[in-house]
């Protein structure tokens, strides 16, 4: 399963772990119902997070049901029965993974994520005008990649804006606009840091590589990566603290799932950041 925005399961209360699984299995089940059993592999953590966040602001009733899991031990699972939030998670999972395949052929990192979060006219709730409003931003990202922009802040800012624009059109999630912007920014940057080694080897665009290019030497790859990560550590930590701060300011507007999202923001994201920053 792909994704960076996920909880630290060890730190979850059992009831929140069950809730997270209910969403996760709920999206998996809905995927299978809508797109066939094989589509279950498309499930992503990021999409699950977005579904959970959407539901946090939704008034729609949440019902729990049961579903059979096709994987061992083939248990009956408790699921969130498909509602608007789960459906959205389904669509994002599908897009996100299909684009991961495209990424291999297209050799362009951001595609992996960008359209994954692009709201298309699904559920009838998202405007078709969103496509128009997001297209210039996608073009801007393509431009920065082609021009080999050495500025990670600049390009991740555009990705954050795409997330923010998406939030603007989804009913009731407006309070989370800045929150989603910051998460989008974090996702782009952590992805770039995680992939830096592979990107250098495959000669694919990576803004961190370009930012520190003058320190790079062919035989010192590991040292270079360690250097880049050490330098970027304060920025990433600050970004996370900003995400946490923003969460605290919108927490009171969430009608449910706030403990789960809190875990993602205070335990999950820092854990992943730490892990990626430490390994070369």
């Amino acid at each position, binding site marked *: 399963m792909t994704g960076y925005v996920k909880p630290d399961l060890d730190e979850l209360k059992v009831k929140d772990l069950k809730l997270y699984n209910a969403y996760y299995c709920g999206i998996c089940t809905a995927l299978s119902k809508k797109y066939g059993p094989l589509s279950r592999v498309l499930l992503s953590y990021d999409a699950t997070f977005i579904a959970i966040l959407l539901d946090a602001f939704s008034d729609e009733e949440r019902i729990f049901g049961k579903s059979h899991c096709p994987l061992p031990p083939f248990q009956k699972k408790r699921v969130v029965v498909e509602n608007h939030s789960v459906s959205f998670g389904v669509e994002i999972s599908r897009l996100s993974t299909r684009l991961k395949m495209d990424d291999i052929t297209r050799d362009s990192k951001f595609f992996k994520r960008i359209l994954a979060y692009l709201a298309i006219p699904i559920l009838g709730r998202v405007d078709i005008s969103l496509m128009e409003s997001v297209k210039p931003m996608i073009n801007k990202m393509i431009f920065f990649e*082609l021009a080999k922009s050495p500025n990670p*802040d600049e390009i991740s800012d555009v990705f954050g804006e795409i997330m923010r624009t998406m939030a603007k059109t989804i009913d009731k999630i407006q309070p989370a606009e800045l929150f989603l912007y910051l998460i989008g920014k974090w996702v782009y940057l952590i992805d770039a840091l995680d992939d830096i080694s592979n990107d250098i080897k495959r000669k694919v665009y990576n803004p961190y590589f370009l930012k520190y290019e003058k320190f790079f030497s062919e035989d010192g790859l590991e040292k270079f990566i360690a250097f880049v990560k050490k330098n970027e*550590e*304060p920025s990433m*930590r600050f970004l996370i603290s900003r995400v946490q701060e923003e969460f605290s300011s919108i927490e009171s507007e969430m009608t449910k799932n706030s403990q789960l999202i809190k875990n993602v923001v205070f*335990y999950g994201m820092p854990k992943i950041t730490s892990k990626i920053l430490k390994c070369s």
Partner: protein
Amino acid sequence: MRDPYEILGVRKDASKDEIRAAYRDLVKRYHPDKFQSNPDMLKLAEEKMKEVNEAYNYLINHADEGISYSTDDASIYAQVRQKIQSGALYEAEDLLIKILDKSNPEWYFLNGIIYAQRGWYNKAHEYIKHAHEMRPDNQEYAQAYKTVERASKSYGPVYTGGQMDEGTACLSCCATLACADLCCNCMGGGC
């Protein structure tokens, strides 16, 4: 215009040579000639080049301006603080760019605060650290530096039972804390 130093990617006390080198590097990357094949890309390249050119021209010309007097600087700093407090970050920045005498730690400190408010945390840390090192006995700089240092070190599990612990509470944007300090120390009127 956005902050020209950010556009070129140079520090605010960069030399003319550094500015020129940064400009040349960006021109190589964003020159419209490279994007002739695609009209959308071409347009973006032209916009970016325009932005880069404006920034470069401003910085190069600005470096040729006359000397400013230290008394003027003091009043500029006061105005900058007011602007930061009221959230007018771009105006605060515009004022700071006018200052030529960069030997004053206040210049670094206020730049750091503006960066922090903007979210450029790496730079905020750099500038505030410099200000603190230049004048270690200044309580305002020391406090801000402590906050910045703490923020960049602790993001681990600080949440205990739904209560914000002291670490996280102080974390809430170093600029907010620093601005609270600003309020107490502000030169242009207030408490």
